[in-house]
């Protein structure tokens, strides 16, 4: 089946099989390898991407089912200008990254939160990131980074 979808602002027309997962379309065919395969069972959140601005699990999504929709991956968060999204800067500054495997999903879930709620409480952040597991950092740095990014984005709302 042929589907059209927009990934990070670019439109693609692709021939897909009904059993093809969005995760593999992104990684293997569009070479967007920032999206990670973790558990494959909807537990860990490493494969999180945004579908029309909301976080979904790309390992649990048939590519054919998102025809016509808009996907954002970690490669697309900084926008056309390049550089880094305030969340990416904050994750580096706060030491919220160790092995880095969970980081793309973590940042996308956090972006979806901050795009809707520019001033989240700690509870709001924990609720929003509940589906993203990190096995290295202990989450403290991640919470600090999301708060720091929220402050940055409120003072310079470019993103």
């Amino acid at each position, binding site marked *: 089946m042929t589907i059209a979808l927009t990934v990070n602002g670019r439109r693609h027309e692709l021939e897909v099989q009904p059993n093809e997962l969005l995760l593999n379309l992104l990684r293997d065919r569009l070479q967007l390898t920032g999206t990670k395969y973790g558990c*494959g069972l909807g537990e860990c959140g490493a494969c999180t991407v945004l579908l029309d601005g909301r976080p979904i699990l790309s390992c649990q*999504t*048939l590519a054919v089912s998102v025809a016509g929709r808009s996907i954002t991956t970690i490669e697309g968060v900084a926008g056309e200008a390049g550089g880094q999204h305030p969340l990416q800067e904050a994750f580096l500054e706060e030491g919220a990254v160790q092995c880095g495997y969970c980081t793309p999903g973590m940042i996308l879930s956090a972006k979806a939160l901050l795009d809707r709620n520019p001033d989240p409480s700690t509870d709001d952040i924990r609720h929003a990131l509940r589906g993203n597991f990190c096995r290295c950092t202990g989450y403290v740095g991640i919470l600090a980074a999301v708060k720091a990014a929220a402050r940055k984005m409120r003072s310079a709302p470019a993103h």
Partner: protein
Amino acid sequence: MPNTRLIPARFTYHRPGRLQEALELLARLPAPRVLAGGTDLLIQIKTGECQPEALVQVLDIQELAAFTVAAGAAGLTVGAAVPLYRLEEEKLLAARYTALHEAVRALASVQIRTMATLGGNLCNASPSADTSGPLIVLGAEAEIAGLSGGKVALRRVGMAKFFTGPGATVLQPGELLVALRLPEPPAASGSAFLKLGRVTLDMAKVSASAYLEREGGRLRAVRLAVGGAAPTPVRALAVEKALSGAAFSPSAVQKAVARVQESISPIDDVRSTAEYRRLMAPVVLRDAILTAWRRAGGEVKE
């Protein structure tokens, strides 16, 4: 463990836009399965637990996408294919159908709630599905569509009768859950949902849902359900009977909830033990009743 990175199984994919078309596909295709958000079904396909030859995705059908919270007595209609995040974000739901709102908010993760639908959570029919108990106690009815003489025929089933076993419902092959309809709760009523899990992302070890109506210091109608402690979500009928019409007091509630044991038959599984579930079912049920009472405007004191 299977390789969960991809789906080796082959199937055809169909995305009907109309209810009639969906029912015709389900009647005509070999080994079809209804696909909504896919958060349960795609895992079952990955693990080989389910081997459909055709998937019929029902997200575009108007009747299944309906979501109306009426201001008057018309109550609440939630189409089976409405994603859970929309229920989470609806403020009127939090105010009037509190137990359902709490259950949705407690369910899995943001990603899952973005994808998963109310109908999917119900049709998958896990004994501990979070939304089942609140729908039972809030008096929801399931609207089910099938084909009769080539035409769409609708029937309604009360939620308490919807589940027939683990993974099993009253839906016949070829039938489709269309919507859930809930009556408007009266003034001086309240509801609550509580669950115990290892971490918040997990499915419940045991859960309790309570709905009650208050008349001064007395309880009028009381409906209670327990999840994760029997092959299906169950009403705690003996506890309901003990409390309906009774004067409210925490000690009366404490005494009554012991009778939840008459309604449950828990087992040991990966999430918990039968013993723990037996011990905790009355505790979560009590706490749900006390919370619902406060929400109905009552005070909790001896």
